[in-house]
Structure formats: structure tokens, C-alpha cells
């Protein structure tokens, strides 16, 4: 349940899929996974939240941390596929202003080309 999967698209963009619950247990693992990708030279990342039914402030903090890390490494971060609960939390915290949200991984990854 706490597995975080990664895959690489043809154009080198990394897609990271957090687990069902992004909380104080799993959020540090997400930051570590993104850190490993950046260390490997992959700083363009889409976080696919289609499986994430729950996010709390630890999860939000992790997403902001990942955003900063990718930008510091010359890349950027996109968010794809927010579930209704996650979208509500983004709206309440105004995080939609800083996290670029897309409905699908395909749309999110295409925004790196522009």
C-alpha cells in the first residue's frame, strides 16, 4: 500500500505514482524518491496522483519540497490526476497556484514541451 512506483516516458520525463495515502509515513519516502531521480539527472517529474485518495499537510509539504528540488536542479514538477479529496485540499491551501495541475499524465508531460 505504501509503494511508490516510477516510470520513464520516452522523452525522459519521470512519472512518480505515490500510494493511496500521502501522509506523514509516506511523504518522506516520496521526497526521497524524487531526490534519487534528481541525483540521477532526472529533474523533469510528473507526480501522478490518480491512486492517491488521501493527502494531508505532510503530503502537501512533500509536494512543495519536490517542486523546489526539481526547480533547483533545472527541471520542474507537474501534478496529474487529482482525486476529489486531493483537489479539495489543494483548493483550501491555494496550492493550485504553485503546483501545475493537469487531469492526466499525458497532458501534464506535454506541458514540459512548451
Amino acid at each position, binding site marked *: 500500500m505504501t509503494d511508490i512506483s516510477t516510470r520513464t516516458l520516452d522523452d525522459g520525463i519521470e512519472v512518480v505514482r505515490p500510494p493511496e495515502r500521502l501522509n*506523514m*509515513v509516506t511523504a518522506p519516502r516520496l521526497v526521497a524518491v524524487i531526490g534519487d531521480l534528481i541525483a540521477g539527472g532526472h529533474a523533469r517529474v510528473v507526480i501522478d496522483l490518480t491512486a492517491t485518495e*488521501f493527502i494531508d*499537510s505532510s503530503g502537501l*509539504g512533500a509536494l512543495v519540497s519536490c517542486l*523546489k528540488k526539481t526547480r533547483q536542479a533545472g527541471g520542474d514538477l507537474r501534478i496529474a490526476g487529482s482525486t*476529489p479529496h486531493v483537489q*479539495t485540499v489543494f483548493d*483550501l491551501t*491555494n496550492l493550485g497556484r504553485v503546483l501545475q495541475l493537469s487531469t492526466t499524465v499525458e497532458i501534464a508531460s506535454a506541458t514540459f514541451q512548451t
Partner: protein
Amino acid sequence: MTTNPHHVNHPTTVCQLTLPPHPESIDAIHDLVAALWAQNSQLSDPDKGRFELGVIEVASNIIEDMRRAPPDAPQVNIVVTLTADPQEITARFCDEGRATDIDLSAVDMPDEMAERGRGLALTQAMLDDLTYERSGSTNIWTLTCVRAAPKGSAR
């Protein structure tokens, strides 16, 4: 876990767990919330979402505060009690740890690029009431979510 149907038409469901203050206890609390939902199938998804968020935020806050306690402080458990009745869903956290220095009236949402500090502000935004009190040697957090009226109801 206990279930107390006080009245056949207006049941009150109570779920309770005693947990150590470890991050791993968060998953057990998620499961406790799920157990409450399993016994209250008529709850709306928005009510379930905001209640679970508040419960996990407060639990995380308590656990993080206990992790900052001096190493020689005695480890205490957290008693989590979740209650659902036709009007409200409530959560109560009790522990015998050190008093928490928190002023809930001063909690504010940090700016968008902050990596910490949203938990209690988010909880207050999501729930109808959040209180903290020190009663004797006990910390008591109480969360209240007033249930949405069923569709078509005049309540």
C-alpha cells in the same frame, strides 16, 4: 472497537483504539476511520473526506509533539475515540503526555511555498469545531464534523 446502537433508528457508533505515538500508528487510525465508515454507509463523501483529514492531522500533530519530548520523558499512549451519530461525527484524542503550548485562535495558513505548518489551519478549515484542553494531566483534542443533511431532507 465497540459499537453501541443506542436506538435502532438513531444509532451511535463508537470506535476506539489505544496506540503508541509512532508514525506507524497513522495507518491504524486510517483503518479505524474506515471501520467507522463501514458501520455508517449513509455518510457523504465530503463529510468523510474532511473528517478523516482532520483526524489524521491532529494525530500527526500529537505524534510529532511527542517525538520532540525529552528522551527521558515516559512514553505514553494515545487513546483515539471516533463517534458517529445522526447529527455529528466526532473524534477525541486523549494522552497523558506533556501539555501542548498551542493557541488555536492564532493558527493561520502559511504561504503556498511553505513545507510545514498547514496541519491545524487545514483542520480548522475542514471541520466545524476543533478544541484542545488540558484536564489534569490529560491532553484532550476534540474534533467535530456536523453532518450534511441528506439530499431532499429539510433538516
